[in-house]
């Protein structure tokens, strides 16, 4: 990493320097009207070499999964195979436009169709829309489909969506966006949905349940069948947040578990770039009874021809054109590259890696629900007096690791949420565990090392409180 702090282009500016040269004017000069010109525009004046060095140095400060381990819980920061970029860059895909007529874009539609079919097979659903642009957009789409289903049946008194407190934070927002009320359901002592509380909340006003399985504690819902049946018994639908699908690939299908709707995160489970490298993509799968409400357009195959169609009672379009098409190319590449057996191995290794890490650190970093975890687990940074999870996270940066997700889920005090993914080697996992154990020792012997971390970065501990209370939004202050 290039450690010196990089100045702003504005600070490097010197009058007269430039990084461009324009050809001579070959048309009559036409000045802007009076009153519409400015003398001072305050743009930086930089030479081409300075400009190149500035951006190359900034790029050297980048931290990414291509440079380091990135165990950000809930985000599935797996390696994105480079072959994805080869296929996404193929001319047949890059030189088409969504406004071209269907007969000119048959290859693109074929790809979308094959991805729809692959996701159906992986999830056990009857239909899939590729429209949503990201996970939360998928949630919103899914809840709108649930709403359309109830309204279509004249069942208009349903207003409540039940959400376990171990669910993803975006779920209540998607519910509110859809005009419904979110009702929180507590967890039981093993980290499952509290079945009694769920039963008590289920009545004729319930739209459905939004459940993440495995949940944000990294735990598989042990009573998933009863949970689904309880919600169905009161006429509600079950929405699955597919953010944690990486743990289930090829092993369990949400459609078979009785889920009615679920979104996929292509940018997590299916290795398309995210965390600044996006955009995301959040397709939604639905069971048979919700097919008529899917967004427009759906790709269907008639004989050898692919067509865009509008489902009978469609909730409409959720995104301009056909969704984030480039991500569909990458995701299908990933699926075809692996095939059924290797996709199952992805889930198995993701779960194995998480359990290995958990076993290596749980004696020092307590895990609130001591069960076998799925693809991630939640430990606590409550390891010594005066030490907080944030101190541990910042100290990890000194050891060359991206910190895990911290202070989420909210139901675990001082939470540290670790998701190694299947793409990491045992050596990397050991190095990370060793760093965490070393930090725990430092917490006892030299706590200041943690309080003042990070020490090896261009900027030290940032004043997050000051930034939130008195934000400076302009570089001149």
């Amino acid at each position, binding site marked *: 990493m290039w450690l010196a702090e990089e100045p702003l282009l504005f600070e490097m500016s010197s009058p007269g320097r430039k990084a461009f040269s324009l050809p001579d004017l070959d048309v009559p000069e036409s000045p802007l009207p009076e009153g519409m010109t400015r003398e001072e525009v305050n743009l930086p004046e930089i030479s081409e070499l300075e400009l190149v060095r500035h951006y190359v140095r900034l790029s050297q400060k980048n931290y990414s999964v291509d440079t380091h381990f990135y165990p950000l819980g809930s985000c599935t920061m797996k390696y994105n195979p480079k072959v994805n970029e080869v296929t996404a860059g193929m001319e047949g895909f890059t030189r088409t436009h969504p406004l071209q007529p269907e007969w000119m874009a048959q290859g693109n539609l074929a790809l979308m169709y094959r991805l729809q079919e692959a996701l159906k097979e992986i999830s056990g659903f009857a239909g899939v829309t590729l429209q949503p642009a990201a996970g939360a957009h998928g949630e919103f789409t899914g809840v709108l489909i649930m709403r359309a289903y109830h309204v279509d049946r004249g069942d208009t008194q349903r207003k409540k969506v039940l959400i376990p407190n171990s669910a993803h934070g975006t779920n209540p927002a998607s519910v509110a966006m859809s005009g419904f009320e979110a009702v929180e359901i507590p967890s039981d002592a093993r980290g499952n949905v509290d079945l009694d509380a769920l039963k008590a909340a289920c009545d004729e006003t319930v739209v459905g349940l939004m459940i993440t399985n495995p949940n944000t504690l990294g735990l598989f819902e042990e009573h998933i069948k009863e949970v689904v049946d309880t919600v169905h018994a009161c006429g509600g639908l079950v929405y699955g947040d597919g953010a944690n699908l990486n743990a289930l690939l090829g092993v369990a299908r949400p459609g078979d578990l009785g889920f009615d709707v679920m979104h996929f995160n292509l940018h997590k489970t299916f290795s398309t770039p995210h965390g600044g490298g996006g955009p995301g993509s959040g397709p939604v799968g639905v069971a048979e009874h919700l097919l008529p409400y899917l967004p427009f357009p759906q790709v269907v195959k008639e004989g050898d021809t692919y067509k865009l169609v509008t489902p009978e009672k469609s909730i409409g379009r959720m995104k301009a054109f056909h969704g984030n098409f480039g991500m569909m190319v990458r995701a299908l590449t990933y699926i075809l590259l692996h095939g059924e057996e290797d996709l199952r191995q992805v889930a198995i290794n993701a779960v194995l890696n998480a359990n290995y890490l958990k076993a290596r650190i749980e004696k020092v970093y307590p895990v609130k629900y001591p069960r076998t975890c799925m693809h991630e687990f939640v430990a606590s940074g409550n390891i010594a007096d005066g030490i*907080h999870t944030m101190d541990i996270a910042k100290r990890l940066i000194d050891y060359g690791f991206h910190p895990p997700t911290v202070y989420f889920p909210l139901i675990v*005090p001082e939470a540290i949420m670790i998701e190694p993914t299947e793409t990491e080697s045992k050596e990397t996992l050991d190095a990370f565990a060793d760093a965490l154990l070393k930090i725990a020792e430092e917490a006892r012997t030299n706590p200041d090392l943690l309080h003042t971390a990070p020490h090896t970065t261009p900027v030290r501990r940032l004043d997050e*409180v000051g930034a*939130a*209370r008195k934000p400076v939004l302009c570089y001149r202050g």
Partner: protein
Amino acid sequence: MKLDANAKYRDTHEWARKEGDLIVCGITDHAQESLSDVVYVELPEVGDTLDQGETFGVVESVKAASDLYMPMSGEIVEVNERLEDEPELVNSDPYGEGWMIKFKPTNPDEWDGLLTGEEYEKAVAEEEG
């Protein structure tokens, strides 16, 4: 954990204290400590009428945003406007200068159902498990 001997509590970490005919309300010392540095407090409008358990605002720290719940039903008569510029008062003096709302209770009997300091401490211990 500091408690205010004159206050009663909700298991969602709000305290309530009688002040003449009115009830003053804020969040507990335990709550502010768990949240860490508070950076923003959203409060209701004076005149709003809210039921017991209904959300009256939101408190945000660098870690998390949490809803604030009415300890009793009532009509808001005053909000602590200082918190707009000095949200840190919630951390430094949760039972004093960090108070959030004053309301006129519409069902004064609800007071009896609130937790005592001792009961609240027990609820926190159970939650921390």
